[in-house]
């Protein structure tokens, strides 16, 4: 059977059309889209953490390091972290950010629990803990910004 050139052309066009349709319909999705609210939440929380460590650095006398003086700040920060945990948990294709925020929660919870248990803190560790938090939040912001497309602004 011989196929007429016009039929062949039509078949080829149909094949191209099917290809274009199939490719257009299925975008590859491995990771969630960038979420500005998520990044802003991280930066806001980090700001509060910096403020907490500033206050701890200023507490030069042992009597000024008691937990009660910092309890409100800890509670406020912990609330923000828990909101962030929930926010990241609710997003699909978001295992990385979810994992990072879970680490932030674990480490901050330990800092708070130790301060409460000892009713004070070791000033030799303040800068170290501030640095740990900075690195954790840097990772969280980087993971969020990695999701941005060129037309997303952050």
């Amino acid at each position, binding site marked *: 059977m011989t196929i007429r050139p016009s039929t062949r*052309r039509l078949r*080829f*066009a149909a094949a*191209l*059309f099917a*290809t*274009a349709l199939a*490719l*257009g319909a*299925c*975008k*590859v*999705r*491995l*990771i969630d889209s960038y979420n500005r609210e998520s990044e802003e939440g991280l930066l806001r929380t980090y700001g509060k953490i910096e403020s907490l460590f500033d206050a701890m650095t200023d507490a030069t006398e042992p009597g000024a390091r008691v937990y009660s003086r910092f309890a409100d700040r800890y509670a406020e920060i912990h609330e923000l972290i828990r909101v962030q945990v929930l926010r990241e948990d609710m997003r699909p294709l978001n*295992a*990385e*950010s979810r*994992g*990072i925020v879970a*680490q*932030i929660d*674990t*480490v901050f919870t*330990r800092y708070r629990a130790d301060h409460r248990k000892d009713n004070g803190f*070791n000033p*030799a*560790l303040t800068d*170290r803990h501030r*640095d*740990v938090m900075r*690195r*954790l939040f*840097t*990772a*969280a912001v*980087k*993971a969020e910004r*990695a*999701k941005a497309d060129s037309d997303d602004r952050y």
Partner: protein
Amino acid sequence: MADWKDVWNDAVKAATGKLKSAGGDAHEYMKDIVAAHKKSLASLLAAFTDGKIDQATMEAELEDEQRVLKAELLAVQAIGKKAAQDAANAFFDVIETAALKGIGGLL
């Protein structure tokens, strides 16, 4: 109509371009991670040696250090995933555009 060999090459070029760009970002960040990790361990050991922290504190801090590293590697993983996603989509976009152009040329 476009030659399909050219289309294929363009698609591969578009995909590798995306991977190269993100690979540079990930590489720079990895360098920062390694440097920070090294500095952090050195300061921890110094604090222990100087008697500023005890054994239990040292162990707890080392555990946190592992947590930080895990978080940082998750961020690198996110950069890699987005790069792979962009590369795959850039590849298929080139083919899709060529297919649509081909239809236009035929009709």
